[in-house]
């Protein structure tokens, strides 16, 4: 493989990893900070894509779809937390799995009723169309670069909020020692609600942003869900930085796996996860003590 091809594949792997990070970051926040397993994470990703399709088909504006999708996801997240998730804190993971699996079924049916089973596409925003020529044959779509930059921006924003704002401090304190933080007078009801809503928003954002590339189809949430869990487990539950590292590793493993080990490419990702877990059972940046 010559250097240029290697560089392009590297770019492919990193870009894929960044999108995985965007979606998985929501999962790790909900799983790590709220202690809730949300199997419906992939369904919200799919829902984000369908909402993007719906809004762009009516208004023709991708930006409206972005803003609208985020707003809808935020509100849905707040509502779901208030009505359902609230009763799941501290409960057996199996109960959470059952509930979130129920969400998947309901979301699928709702999507079926509203949009049917067809495959749809969302147009790339005009100024992001076009491709940058890399070789005489191959070009790289500008939109994919834009998506990568967007994911980096979101990563920076999450990092900034968690590290340098008051609410980030509360979230971190709650993850480390909830009882003590409560004893210090911090009320978690609102914090939990916002964290869950943000988790849902991140999943939906992944779907919205990827819709022009990936097209919008019913099964899109399933594979994303499994990969998101792999990323979260690999990086360490609750660690956003870990999710970033995990996502990049998986993006690269998947890309190079497809090229170098086509027969085994479906297991490179899981093999990587197994190896990392042997080395670090709690994930790369996971907490050492349970």
């Amino acid at each position, binding site marked *: *493989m*010559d250097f240029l*091809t290697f560089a*392009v*594949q590297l770019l*492919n*792997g990193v*870009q*894929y990893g960044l999108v995985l990070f965007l979606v998985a970051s929501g999962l790790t926040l909900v799983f790590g900070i709220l202690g809730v397993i949300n199997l419906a994470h992939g369904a919200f990703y799919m829902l984000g894509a369908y909402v993007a399709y719906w809004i762009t088909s009516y208004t023709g504006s991708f930006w409206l779809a972005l803003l609208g999708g985020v707003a809808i996801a935020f509100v849905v997240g707040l509502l779901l937390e208030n009505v359902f998730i609230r009763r799941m804190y501290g409960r057996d993971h199996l109960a959470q799995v059952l509930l979130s699996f129920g969400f998947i079924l309901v979301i699928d049916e709702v999507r079926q009723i509203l949009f049917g089973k*067809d*495959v*749809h*596409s969302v*147009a790339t925003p005009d100024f992001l169309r076009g*491709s940058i*020529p890399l*070789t*005489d*044959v*191959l*070009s*790289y*779509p500008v*939109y*994919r670069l834009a998506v990568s930059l967007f994911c980096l921006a979101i990563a920076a924003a999450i990092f900034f909020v968690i590290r340098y704002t008051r609410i980030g401090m509360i979230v971190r304190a709650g993850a480390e020692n909830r009882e003590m933080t409560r004893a210090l007078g911090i009320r978690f009801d609102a914090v939990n609600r916002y964290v869950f809503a943000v988790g849902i928003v991140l999943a939906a954002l992944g779907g919205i942003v990827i819709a022009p*590339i*990936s*097209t919008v*189809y*019913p*099964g*899109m949430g399933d*594979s994303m869900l499994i990969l998101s869990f792999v990323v979260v487990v690999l990086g360490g539950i609750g660690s956003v930085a870990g999710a970033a590292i995990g996502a990049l590793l998986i993006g690269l493993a*998947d*890309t*190079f796996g*497809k*090229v170098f080990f*086509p027969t085994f*490419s*479906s297991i490179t990702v899981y093999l990587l996860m197994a190896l990392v877990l042997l080395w670090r059972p709690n994930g790369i940046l996971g907490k050492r003590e349970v």
Partner: protein
Amino acid sequence: MAMVKVARDTKMMLMIPNAGANDATGPLCAPNIFRTSFSNWQPNFPMGKVMYDAGHRNVATITWRYTAGQEQVGGFKEGFTKAGGKIVEDLVLPFPEVEFQALITRLATLKPDAVFAFFAGGGAVKFVKDYEAAGLKRTIPLYGSGFLTDGTIEAQGPSADGVKTTLHYADNLDNPANKAFLEAFKKKTSQDGDIYAVQGFDTAALLDIGLAAVGGDWAARDKVVAAMEGAKIDSPRGPLSFSKAHNPIQNVYLREVRNGRNEFVSIAQDNVNDPARGCRLGA
């Protein structure tokens, strides 16, 4: 295929209006199993000669790693190598993954004369879009099994323009049966008919022939089967009859995506009969 096995054991009449698995009219063929759609081999074998005649000598294939993918590409490979062409590389990715970037980059490195792809549904939409976005369509022509562009053109948009595929149907086939069918279908469902609609339509037509032959007496099963075996249907897809293995004998058409649909270019091969390898019916 599980259904096929059960049908064989219980001798229940099984009509297959869409599934393409070669084995259903191959090693697992049976008198009570009829297929009105296609075998995975059938629409792709003629594409081999088409691509060879178009001047392509070194072709790369790409599909999902599952039975349908292997059988569809297998049919193409058989036809292409028989005509004298050479397969540069067979690219596969796990089903149903849709992250094609790594393999599209690989195709750009390989620089084959053309690419033959089999995907269906959401994967087909994404692949064609990704292929075009990577600029490959300009220099490496994209061909495929008809499923690459059937039911997916609206979502694919202009990225599908010019993609040539072979299938046992084309949206604008100029025969009276097709014209009548499309009109009636549009009126009844306000949707445009496609190959899936035609296959369903033909399944009912075949059953009708079987039942008419026995005056509705379903118990006279052997006569029903005999009538269906000998059926010659004037289908929207062209002349339709059935092989000894109960697979359709039908024309395969070369189509090109133009004006938002798969337009008929030429008959790639007429009265294509799947070899039904392994079937012992009527042997």
